[in-house]
């Protein structure tokens, strides 16, 4: 049963991931991403990290990819890009080589170490213990990083508003140290 769930979830993740890259239409790619995220959520459930699974779906699938879709739809880039013109001819083969190389590297690393990786202690999944553990960790050991993440939101909001705003006023382009 566990193996079956693992295989199905991993299949979702892989198919989704390949879909993200291979699909021509950005909306289909985004849907592939959703599939991947769901697969990860299933893995979380199988590992009894229920809270993470729920958050994975709510935050990633429910908010982030929806925003991707918004951008894709509203900017009208939802038609396939013309990829036939290649500005730097070598980059595609190079990308393939590096991609395959990374997969092989990580793959061999995993295979070579599959016996030596220390198994984490088993957690009993008694109700809310997951959430309590997470909360304890976040609000004691990681509390500073957690709190300062809120500054990141200020950055995101201030920055986004600024970037989407029109230029304040037209002034001579004087600080440009270009040619």
């Amino acid at each position, binding site marked *: 049963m566990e193996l079956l769930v693992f295989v199905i979830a991993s299949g979702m993740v892989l198919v989704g991931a390949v879909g993200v890259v291979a699909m021509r239409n950005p909306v289909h790619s985004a849907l592939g991403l959703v599939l991947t995220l769901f697969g990860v959520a299933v893995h979380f459930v199988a590992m009894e990290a229920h809270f993470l699974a729920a958050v994975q779906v709510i935050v990633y699938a429910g908010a982030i990819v929806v925003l991707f879709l918004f951008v894709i739809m509203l900017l009208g880039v939802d038609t396939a890009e013309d990829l036939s013109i290649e500005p730097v001819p070598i980059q595609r083969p190079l990308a393939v080589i590096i991609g395959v190389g990374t997969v092989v590297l990580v793959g061999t*690393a995993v295979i070579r170490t599959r016996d*030596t990786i220390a198994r984490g*202690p088993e957690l009993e999944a008694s109700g809310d213990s997951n959430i309590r553990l997470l909360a304890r*960790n976040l609000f*004691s050991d990681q509390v500073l990083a957690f709190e300062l993440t809120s*500054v990141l939101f200020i950055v995101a909001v*201030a920055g986004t508003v600024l*970037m989407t705003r029109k230029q304040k006023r037209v002034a001579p382009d004087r600080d*440009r140290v*270009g040619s």
Partner: protein
Amino acid sequence: MIAAIVAQLGEWTAPVIDWHALAPELILVVGINLVLFIDLNIGEARKWAMATLTGFVLLAAFVPVVTLAVIGDASREMFDGRYVVDHYALILKAIFLLVAYVVVLMSQNELEEGGYYQGEFYVLMLCSVLGMVMMASSRDLVSIFVALELLSIPAYMMAAWRKRDVRSNEAGVKYYLLGVFASAVLLYGMSFLYGTTGSTKLVEIGEVLASGDLIAMQVVAIAFVIAGLAFKVSAVPFHSWAPDTYEGAPTPVTAFFSVASKAAGFVALMSLIFLAFPTATGVYQPLIWVLAVLTMTVGNVMALRQTNIVRMLAYSSVSQGGFILMPLAVAGTGDASQSAVRAVIVYLLIYAFMNLGAFAVVIAVSRKTRSGEITSFGGLFGYAPGMAAVMTIFMASLAGIPPLGGWIAKFNVFKTVIDAGSGAAYALAVIAAVNTVIAAAYYMRVLRQVWMMPAPDGDITPLATPAPVTAALGITAIGTLVLGVLPGLVLRFGDLQDLTGALGR
């Protein structure tokens, strides 16, 4: 580790917080909100005040750094050793705050006269500085990552601050895409590290790595982490964003990136190498050795060919990054581990002064010439002898000519590498020496323009340098000179608490 947490699930104790040690961060957070709110409520005509306010916030954050250093009880640990304020952290915090202050001085007139959003710019800059200050104390993968994002994300936006300019947009997008990619690689490596060691705390990771042979996934993890950070410090071959971003971004922002962001990347690298990977010398040393050699060589060769001063400084900063990597490449060999941290910190400090100074000169001169070409510096000595003199100081210092700061920095780096005493170290030293000579060529080319060439269009009206830029020039020039003449200042400062010791080992 998880078992330990389960065991203590019973009672909840709030973490002990040392408010004094956290004061610089807290002051910055308060300052961010203050600048944001005041900026909202004042009129367009008085926006210049935001620069002043930001300057005061930075100075206020400097105060607790000084008091902590004066009290000097070696190190204050918080959150189970995940956030440490020791001499190492304090020196770096001081460097970051100082750099930010100088950048504020440099940007005030640029932003005001260019008609850019000012308040938000300083808010983002303060956020970035907050990330750096946090980075200096972080001893945990999570807080290192949060700090890294906190310092990078505002930087992506600052790079695109000249919104009407296509090249600034390009700079922002390039920096953003590659930066995010680097973060992903870093995070991937970090997840492997956590997965194979069961801890996010650097010291605990170090203990697990030291306890036996490295397994393959740990090797991959270390390589990924170093590659991710190599993007941030723009080490070759992960440097391709740097020249375009530096050229497209507003010049004060470029100065900020080339000094502060880069230094923060080095800080993360140092914390990881000295705390988490000290025993993994077989993995990180060759990696960084290759990175250092490539970085300084490619940076130099590319810099030689540039005609635009900002692009030249961009490549020069890439190659300087290679020099800063050198001590880390031998950090685990022989006696070098003792002096490597000091060499890096001293280099970062001096590099901050001289590079910021060079950018300040570029800003001051381009206000008149409206050009970024190196030839536009022609005749500078004729109409602005003072400016020519400080430019000489900075260029000579960057080239490493005694008795200026840059020389001390390079001397320390070489000394560390020689201390290591291995074959690889000697090879590195030789390559670095060759590179120093190449570098001197392009720095001298600028000086040749300054001293010997006539002004390109015969325009010899004097420069009108605004007071803040002059102040920035003064601070950086004095810093470069004093550290060169009295190197004991920083070297002693490095001995206060032998810094590798201060890192908690």
